[in-house]
């Protein structure tokens, strides 16, 4: 057998066999993996929508995205199959990289139910405290019951962290304060030493809320 033929043959046979194996393994595992994904999403939705028992489904399988590709929104349904609130995925730049959160909001979009960080790469012990559970009051717990109306409409233009521009049109639905206890119903306290991450969270949520209102209304 000449070398050329051997080369083609060996590589092709190896390729065929391995693709066969991979495809077989894929066929076996794909349903499981997809199920994990679904469950994960569902779990997150139910976690941020405490009253929801069910979500609006997409052909009976997945929770249906009623939003856009940019802002995924899911409708939560309570035991009575009435709307229990919306869960949406807010995403934007933090101190180091992208922060991704699942947020639950009341059906009239006035009050946050809960916030859960899905992904973040902030500094552990610092920015990462937006997601970490600590012995002190957790940062994310502050979002439960937070008013999302905006008490004033001061522009957010002075915020200097980088990345997504906070355009002046976006109202401060919620706000963060530093070194003092929040006294307005739409305020949360920033994490000491991680103001940047805290403000990023607030700003991402504000932007998403802005878009959410456009979608829902």
């Amino acid at each position, binding site marked *: 057998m000449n070398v050329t033929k051997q*080369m083609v043959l060996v*590589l*092709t046979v190896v390729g065929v066999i391995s693709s066969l194996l991979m*495809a077989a393994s894929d066929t076996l595992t794909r349903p499981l993996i997809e199920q994990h994904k679904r469950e994960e999403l569902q779990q997150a939705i139910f976690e941020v929508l405490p009253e929801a028992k069910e979500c609006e489904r997409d052909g009976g399988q997945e929770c249906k995205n009623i939003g856009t590709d940019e802002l995924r929104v899911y409708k939560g349904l309570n035991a009575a199959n009435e709307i229990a609130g919306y869960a949406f995925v807010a995403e934007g730049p933090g101190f180091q990289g992208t922060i991704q959160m699942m947020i639950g909001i009341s059906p009239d979009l006035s009050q946050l139910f809960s916030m859960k960080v899905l992904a973040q790469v902030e500094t552990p012990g610092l920015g990462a405290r937006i997601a970490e559970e600590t012995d002190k009051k957790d940062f994310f717990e502050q979002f439960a019951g937070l008013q999302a109306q905006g008490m004033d409409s001061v522009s957010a233009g002075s915020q200097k962290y980088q990345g997504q521009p906070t355009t002046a049109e976006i109202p401060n639905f919620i706000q963060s304060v530093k070194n003092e206890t929040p006294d307005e119903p739409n305020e949360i306290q920033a994490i000491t030493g991680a103001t940047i991450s805290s403000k990023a969270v607030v700003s991402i949520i504000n932007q998403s809320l802005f878009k959410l209102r456009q979608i829902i209304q």
Partner: protein
Amino acid sequence: MTTIILAILSMGGMCALLSFLLAGADKKLRVEQDPRVEKVLAALPGVNCGGCGFPGCSAFAEHVVAGDARINGCAPGGQATAEKIAAIMGVEVGSMEKQVAVVLCHGGTKEAARSAVYNGVKTCRAAMFIGGGGKLCYYGCMGYGDCVTVCPFDAIAMNDNLLPVVDPQKCTACGKCVEACPRHLIELHPINHTMFVFCKSQDKGPAVKKACSVGCIACRVCVKNSPIENGIVMNGNLASIDHAICPPSDIVVEKCPMKTIQIVKYDLK
């Protein structure tokens, strides 16, 4: 099922295409080179780690064949690879008679007179510029150990007398020290050469006597007592042993008034 078929088709297709290309390229673009490069390359682990200091195994192989890379330079390959390469390169280790470096000066601090206090860079090379490092003898060991630093096998050490001593066990006769010694005091000799004139001074007797208590004063006693005719001859002001014909001789050693001629004993296991 379609997935599996598609997967097989696309993967198989890509493999076939690429291997075809590679095969074609191999025919058309093959570059002739020293066949030993291929062999060395085959002996290497092929990790392409770059740890040898060359960019990749093939580069290392080329340099080995070209002779400017250490044969044992491949860390992942370890000793075994080094041996294989040695075999390919024809560096026959066992067949050659073992040689050992010999330092031909016995004028350490105790024996050699000083001319000045040397306050310069403490290497032999540097001392050469500045009055020979403060020893009166212009030919002897300066004792700053360039040979010691240069030996890749830790085979030379300085003794208390500030003379370098070669460990015959460790010495591989690589010749690094021979090159390093600015006074050309070190020579490589087969281990069956055991009797040496441990002096390189070309000075006349009185000058040598002043400079060193073990220097060759050209008294010709050894020549007279040579065990074989012309076994030891005078080379200028220095006795010279012709190792090819002259066996070691206790009498010569005994008669040398300066104890310049000595017989070394190699203790090799």
